[in-house]
């Protein structure tokens, strides 16, 4: 093969047909891989597809085999029943308020701390950063019981503030922003601004923040979904029916006596569809953020 490319010998017909054969083989392999990946993708989505389909089914159709993906006579009775029985919209509202506030808090603290840790090299700061990193591996479940008592003594149980208490800072967020600051904000730029007489706070606001827009966007999406899907903490902090987040509300609703699968599916679908849409829209941001979690080393 190497000699061919050097000496430009005309390929013989056998070589040509060999090339055609190889190309065909390659195409067949690629086709097989595509089929396999499509099957895997569909299998991964199937439980969710069925859930949404079940939400629109009548109780009779629910029992039919094989299960239908498109309901024969779709009904919204399940949805109206759920909305009548539970404060579902209230729960969704609680979740949104909690997730938005948590996102703002995490983005703000990570932006400031990430910038300071990335660009200001003082010994005190190094020690503090090591402290932030060291606690990053401690799972939330380990310290949530003392935190619960802190929320209790602050008198913020059963409120969105109590939920927020557990989700104010994110070690990984600080780390992510610090990496970005180091890689994408040149020291010269900051020095030039300082020589021009800009104050430190002005520099942060008008130079650093705009340059971090991409990274902060990715972090915001991560933080929002983290709060939106939180379970254990809301479970212990929000214990009154009006303060539930949607996750807790659904989890407790499904233990009720009179609940059938159609209504459960309807409630679940109400939550699922917007969050999937949101994810598909923000996919790039999200993937960028999650992918960077794997690059810690």
């Amino acid at each position, binding site marked *: 093969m190497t000699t061919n490319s050097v000496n430009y010998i005309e390929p013989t017909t056998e070589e040509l047909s060999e090339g055609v054969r190889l190309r065909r083989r390659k195409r067949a*392999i*690629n086709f097989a*891989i*595509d089929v*396999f*990946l499509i099957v*895997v*993708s569909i299998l*991964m*989505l199937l*439980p*969710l597809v*069925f*859930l949404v389909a079940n939400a629109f089914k009548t109780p009779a159709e629910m029992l039919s*085999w*094989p299960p239908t993906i498109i309901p024969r006579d779709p009904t919204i009775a399940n949805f109206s029943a759920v909305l009548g029985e539970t404060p579902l919209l209230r729960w969704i509202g609680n979740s949104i308020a909690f997730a938005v506030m948590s996102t703002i808090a995490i983005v703000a*603290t990570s932006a*400031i*701390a990430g910038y300071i840790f990335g660009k*200001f090299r003082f010994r*005190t700061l190094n020690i*503090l950063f090591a402290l*932030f990193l060291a606690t990053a591996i*401690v*799972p939330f*479940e*380990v*310290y*949530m*019981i*003392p935190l619960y008592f*802190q929320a209790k003594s602050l008198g913020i149980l059963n409120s969105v503030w109590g939920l927020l*208490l557990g989700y*104010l*800072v994110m070690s990984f967020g600080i780390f992510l922003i610090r990496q970005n600051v180091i890689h994408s904000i040149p020291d010269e730029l900051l020095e030039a601004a300082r020589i021009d007489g800009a104050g*430190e706070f002005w520099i942060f606001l008008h130079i650093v923040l705009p340059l971090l827009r991409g990274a902060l966007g990715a972090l915001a999406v991560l933080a929002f*979904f983290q709060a939106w*899907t939180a379970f*254990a903490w809301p479970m*212990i902090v929000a214990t009154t029916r009006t303060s539930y987040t*949607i*996750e807790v509300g*659904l*989890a407790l609703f*499904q*233990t009720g*006596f009179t*609940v*059938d*699968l159609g209504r459960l*599916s309807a409630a*679940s679908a109400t*939550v*699922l569809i917007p969050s999937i849409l949101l*994810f598909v829209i923000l996919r790039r941001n*999200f993937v960028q953020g*999650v992918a960077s979690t*794997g*690059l810690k*080393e």
Partner: protein
Amino acid sequence: MLKRKRWIFAILAILPTLAVFAYVRLYPIADTLRLSLFKWDILSKNKPFVGLANFRELMGDHLFLDALVNTTIIAFGVLILTIPMALIIAALIFHRTRSRMAGFYETAIFIPHVVSLVPAAMAWKWIFDARLGPLNALLTFFGIPAQSWLFDPVLSVICIIVLCSWQALGYAVLIYIVGFKNLPVSLYEAAKLDGASGPQSFWYLSIPMLKPITLYVSVVTLVSGFNVYAQAFVLASDAQGAPGRQVRVLVLDMLENSFRNYRVGYAASEAVVLLVIVLALTLIQFSMLRERGKA
């Protein structure tokens, strides 16, 4: 002078974040460690220091040991199911990066990782349902007797493993794809010139070179496996109201001890056990990485 001004700015800017961090992270972590050494019950007035008595009691507590065993099985079950599948799927998606479908594959496999836990668990609950679920219907179609998936002690653990793996897979695939993208192309070209087939270069090149990523994903998967709670909660509580046969997991046992039995100190000692497990896993990861660096 200038340096001093910058130092003051840095400290002032970091202070609010640091204060929040200390209050919601450092203090409760320290408090967990402290409480684990006390007989700290909500109901009793005096809360004496008891040293390691809580931990000694844990060693003989059947509910706790049951939870520990279940949680360990779940964590390792998810690991064994997820890692090989993720590696293969990521390799295939990477191979087809240029095809128009690549975005669809990535999204489809990743969606289970981002959707809320409870609705997703609900979908699986229906699949596993003994009377209505399609799984049993499928089994009986092939002449295999139907199983009561969510009530049998062994099968219900398997159900949790399947649910957790379904969710963990997307994350692992994504990290692996990033890993594949960072591998040097020249090495694969050299292997191809030497006559290596696709599967051969996957086995002899990709797997060894992705070892740090495999270690990282494994530890993340294991740690989240040890923190499993929502999945067990939803799958195990049955639709008829009675909390069915619960699959005991560590977090569940911990919360029960703290909020149902009011034994906060005892629950804290369970949290410390969880922390030790997570620390040990992380240390193993780091030491294996360092060994690799030396070799």
